């Protein structure tokens, strides 16, 4: 069995790179005494996988990791023991026990929801949204293995709308294509003709191809 864990990466933890987060989670799991598994070899490491790394600077409300188990444990026990040792702003919010045969979260992932909270120019940005989305192509430069090349952001944006004083967007996040929320924001600012203000970005959900959260509805 494996445990799918929903956790937050909020506040100052948004500054942690993926490797830092991975180490922090591995150490928390070790402290918790939960029945985890280790790789073989001279440098055994605790087995753990994340659905999607989060860019440094972006918060996550419902991030997802999967922990293979050496013995079955109840979801409630798992959650309680892990939260006993996780730091503030990195708490686990849900745990779902799964058969090993369930496809990894990373493979099921298709999209993610983000909330963008700019410090200023909100009205202008909100007004620019319809025009921004009506563009046929939104070119951006992507650095890949083969160097820098131009790609189209438009088909990767599934939704973008204003909600309260924030912008909410659903972006493609899969092996077929991924749109970065910070890139979307700078593109939108450019379209609106303003210098990008400071903007706090929060990833709020990781979705499968039916746009259902990976942890289940």
């Amino acid at each position: 069995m494996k445990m799918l864990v929903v956790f937050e990466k909020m506040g100052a933890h948004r500054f942690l790179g993926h490797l830092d987060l991975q180490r922090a989670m591995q150490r928390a799991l070790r402290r918790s005494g939960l029945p985890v598994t280790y790789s073989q070899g001279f440098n055994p490491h605790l087995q753990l996988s994340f659905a999607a790394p989060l860019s440094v600077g972006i918060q996550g409300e419902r991030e997802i990791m999967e922990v293979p188990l050496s013995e079955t444990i109840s979801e409630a026990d798992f959650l309680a023991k892990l939260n006993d040792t996780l730091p503030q702003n990195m708490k686990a919010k849900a745990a779902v026990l799964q058969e090993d045969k369930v496809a990894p979260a990373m493979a099921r992932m298709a999209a993610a929801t983000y909330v963008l909270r700019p410090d200023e120019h909100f009205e202008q940005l909100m007004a620019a949204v319809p025009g921004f989305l009506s563009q046929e192509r939104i070119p951006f430069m992507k650095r890949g293995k083969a160097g820098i090349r131009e790609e189209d952001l438009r088909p990767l944006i599934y939704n973008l709308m204003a909600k309260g004083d924030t912008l909410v967007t659903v972006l493609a996040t899969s092996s077929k294509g991924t749109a970065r929320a910070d890139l979307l924001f700078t593109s939108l600012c450019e379209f609106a003709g303003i210098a990008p203000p400071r903007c706090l970005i929060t990833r709020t959900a990781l979705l499968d191809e039916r746009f259902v959260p990976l942890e289940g509805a």
Partner: protein
Amino acid sequence: MQARLEALLETVQKPSRYTGGEVNEIKKDWAGKTTCCFAFPDTYEVAMSHLGMKVLYESINAQEDLLCERVMMPWTDMIEGLKEQGIPLYSLESRRALSAFDMVGFTLQYEMSYTDILKMLELGGIALHNKDRDENAPFVIAGGPCAFNPEPLAPFIDAFLLGDGEHATNEMLRAIGAGRKAGKNRAAILRDLAQIEGVYVPDLYEATYHEDGRLAAFTPLDKSAPLPVKKRIELDLNEAPFPTSIPVPYTQAVHDRIVLEIMRGCTRGCRFCQAGMLYRPVRERSPEQLFALAEQLVAATGYEEMSLSSLSTGDYSQLLELIKGLNERFCDQRVSLSLPSLRIDNQLQEALVDTAQVKKSGLTLAPEAGTQRLRDVINKGVTEGDLLRTVSEAFASGWNNVKLYFMIGLPYETDEDLLGIADLARKVVNCYYAIPKGQRARGLKVVVSASTFVPKPMTPFQWAAQDTLEEIRRKQALLRSALNIKGVTFNWHDPETSFLEACFARGDRRLAKVLYRAYELGCLLDGWNEHFKYDAWMQAFTDTGLDPAFYANRERDKDELMPWDLADIGVTKKYLWRENERARNAEVTPDCRLGCEGCGLTRFEGVCRG
């Protein structure tokens, strides 16, 4: 200010250096407490590798009336950001400016961190010179190995602690707290601090100089000022506090693991080694206590690696029992054990077999010198036979990675000794090929590192001249060509840093002017190659009219008054001179556990039975 700081953190590299909030961070309420900020004059990653900080952090915070927070040297991007935003350098825990604490305590681990101290004081809103601090300013304290020659920092530091800090730091904090409560002024509190064993208050003394620059006299200005200042000693490590729960950094520290201090002090008497002279007598923690500490630390941190710390781990009297016990306890939890700086002359093979059960890390050996004669000069009691036997055993049991540490520029060194390094490296390579192909790990890697020798105060080589930069470069070039051997990598460093270290290690009070000038010229983070500004340092010497060669490259007379003679570390100058004479004759001095060599420590009552 919080909002400006949040915005700033988004723009700097590795923000988690500046946020605190680690697992096991200790946050205490400030009401009614005497407050201390432990200041580490290097980056977060270096600081969080330092055991001493963790010891004092937990032991001070265990006291109800005291509180300890942490601060480190920010990287240049953060320094600029703090200045632009008008945010003072703050503690990780409560994010208060350094100026808000009763005491700010720096640890002096290496000389090249001194400019960082000045920068941190500036950023923290504290006057750089102790004379300019008002009644509300924190007391700026410094301890650690370099505090044994405190003079180059004398004008900037209010009080130094010489020796073990576990109890002395609490006493200093309480003297400050009680003094402030009683309405005493700064000068009166400083006199109180000088009464604590191990404390040196530089303003209570005066240094005068001969015309040629040598120290002429060193005199107390106040009857409350002891001379010499006797170092502080924790007699029983089992009674001394040791942390059971340490903050676990998010960003990777240089040494990111649990460190168990198994022993303090060393009786081998290597003549180049300052720690070996400073930290006598030898004191061990019991295996039982270490097992208990390790269990608490593993449970509290989740660390996957543990190392043993001491000056000479191979000399720990119950080493095998300790290693076996740790492996038994933590093997299932996949906690690996690494053994640093093992001497290569005892019990190693069995220990090696044991650690291999969990993890195969590299083998690091420090013969220090290339020939037996020079190893006898420096009293490093290791023979070529010992070394080759050890590496052969290691190669046979699957190791393929050996690091060999040497020093160049040692007193009485000849070119033959340097070529001996290459000779030894070649023999190590041959040991590997002597193991049949199927039985050895593939891909031999021998790394030979040669550091530049820095004569240190309170060692038998305190009188010695350091080789000039030109001579060191010549020796490095000689070694480079001699070490052109397949499978061997040679590491060396530009000698300029070692030259400056030599100046400050044996510096006097006047060098403070050079330090201040270098700080004005923008020197900081000098331990980092990309920031080290050698030309600015030389400019600082020129501007202040002092000659670096006087400090680094001058051989001293037997009876010269040394700036660090103000401290009594237990070991006497007479003993050090005798060892210097023996070095000249390549005469070894046995480990004093085999018989007292009369180093002088028995003068301290109850410290060493002789």
